[in-house]
């Protein structure tokens, strides 16, 4: 499998009155061709900022990339000029956002918004782009694509708008698609349809997808590999099967426990106590320690490192100790 995207030690911050405030604290991961990688975490864990960093989409926002590399097909996107970067966006790397209701321009017709990308990246004249747009709309399962071209976004339902956005973003055959909570704002039935659609497209085109969500149920359904983020850091990374079978980090366990299961009685759903710490007020040591039921003295003092055993990475002292125990156990007799 060829590697499509590699993020190396990414650090991103927000400009505030008191200077640059880091919110992503050096994360590294990769996405292969034809692979769907999930990024999960609660809101405030830095998932969306990560995706915006890859696309360098911090115009008119206080966001700023501080350090690191984003290698796309081996080329560091952070070295590109804005002019070059524009040729990547929507063409090589596309992005779908959470809010289908507001992601389309309310005063422009669907047709114009569809054509825009095609004319820009595929250098097609207007007429040809029009036909191509209709073809793309049909390919994402929109039946009356011709009529739709002349309609305004407010005339469509949320699910239909998200389909239009997906069509728009895959129209130039990108190799990488970043989907930032693409189904969160939709009804459950529509959610399933959109997920199926994305899976279908992915199989057909063999593109890589970075799928950002807070919903582990969605991850189980669609992803091959999962990255769990907490407070701007990766706390666990494993394949989907491994993660659900053997979650290691207490945070991941908490997330899995808080997914509602079929056949569950009216018991109260588990939720992790507390909230993600504010970037201005990060706890010392492990960032999750204040909310962790297994927290030990060391957790509050020193931050654990991300350690990988058999392709399963975890950032937690619990496993560090186990490993230490194992090491000690080798030289000792069991009592």
């Amino acid at each position, binding site marked *: 499998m060829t590697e499509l995207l590699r993020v190396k030690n990414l650090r991103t911050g927000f400009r505030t009155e*008191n200077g640059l405030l*880091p919110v992503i604290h050096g994360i590294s991961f990769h996405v292969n061709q034809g692979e769907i990688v999930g990024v999960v975490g609660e809101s405030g864990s830095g998932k969306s900022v990560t995706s915006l960093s890859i696309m360098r989409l911090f115009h008119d926002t206080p966001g700023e990339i501080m350090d690191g590399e984003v290698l796309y097909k081996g080329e560091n996107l952070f070295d590109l000029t804005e002019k070059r970067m524009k040729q990547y966006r929507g063409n090589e790397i596309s992005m779908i956002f959470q809010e289908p209701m507001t992601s389309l321009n309310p005063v422009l017709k669907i047709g114009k918004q569809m054509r825009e990308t095609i004319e820009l990246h595929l250098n097609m004249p207007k007429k040809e782009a029009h036909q191509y747009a209709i073809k793309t709309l049909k390919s994402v399962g929109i039946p009356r694509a011709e009529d739709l071209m002349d309609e305004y976004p407010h005339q469509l339902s949320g699910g239909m708008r998200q389909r239009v956005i997906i069509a728009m973003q895959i129209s130039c055959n990108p190799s990488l698609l970043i989907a930032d909570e693409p189904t969160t704002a939709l009804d459950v039935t529509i959610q399933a349809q959109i997920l199926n659609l994305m899976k279908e497209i992915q199989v057909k085109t063999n593109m890589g997808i970075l799928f950002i969500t807070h919903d582990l149920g969605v991850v189980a359904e669609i992803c091959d590999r999962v990255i769990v983020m907490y407070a701007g850091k990766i706390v666990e990374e494993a394949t989907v099967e491994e993660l659900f079978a053997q979650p290691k980090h207490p945070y991941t366990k908490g997330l899995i426990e808080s997914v509602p299961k079929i056949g569950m009685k009216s018991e109260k759903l588990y939720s992790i106590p507390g909230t993600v710490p504010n970037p201005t*007020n990060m706890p010392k040591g492990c960032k999750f320690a204040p909310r962790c039921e297994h927290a030990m003295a060391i957790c509050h003092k020193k931050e654990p490192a991300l350690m990988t055993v058999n392709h399963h990475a975890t950032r937690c002292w619990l496993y560090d100790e186990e490993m230490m125990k194992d090491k000690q156990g080798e030289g000792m007799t069991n009592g």
Partner: protein
Amino acid sequence: MSSLQSKSMEVEQIKIKEPGRFQQFWRSFHRKKPAVISFYFVLLLFVIMIIGPFITPYDAAEPDYNSLLETPSLTHFFGTDEYGRDILSRIIAGAKISLSVSVSAVSLGAIIGTMLGLISGFIGKWVDKLIMRGCDVLFAFPDLILAIGIVAILGPGLKNVVIAVAFFSIPSFARIVRGATLEVKEMLFVEAAESIGAGRMRIMLKHIFPETLPTIIVYFTMNVGTAILAAASLSFLGLGAEPSSPDWGAMLSVSRDYIGTAFHLVFFPGLIIFLTVLAFNLLGDGLREMLDPKMKD
């Protein structure tokens, strides 16, 4: 981020909580340079308004036929007018007229408008409809036309200018306060107060009014600027202050005859009107940004 840095931020956060709301407000206000300069300028104007008679270099009303229409010089910084009166002294004397007319007009409009807005928003139903339709009718007349009409009815003079200017500020205050009242009413504590059985009047005065106060203050400041312009316009049209009085608008009205011969008669009164209105507008902008985060860009 190093832990040291985060530590210092923690300390900073705690520190901010300590001083009262006013100090906090004052501190962030001082970051906005134009608003701060404007604030001190307005303050200076009010001081001049009070101590004006004691600091004017010449008598503002006494003619001096030995120095008619003199251009600005070291003896008369802003020159003299057609009766030889010192223009700087007249501008200082005029500050009192301009400020008192505009501030009292806006106060009058604000008081009536605020009361109407509170009643309208709080009681609702037909009372609300009646008051709002009344505002629509007032809004149908362009501000200055309404003021000119009122002065046409009541006759020229500063007292009537105050009434006229107050009149056109009523509907905007009423609308803004009504909107704010509706918003506050939605909030829980009013419901809570109502369930405790607090009287309506009490709820309006003790709970809703203080919440709407920031909006009123911002709007008041901005309206003083508008009022100064309107009052000066009326005086300029000969519907306000007596032509012989040192009112800024009246001075400009008289100066029209000397354009081409003594431009300083035109220049200085107009400049001071401009600077005063500018100060009130910049101050209003600064206050708005701080007190009403919704209106920020």
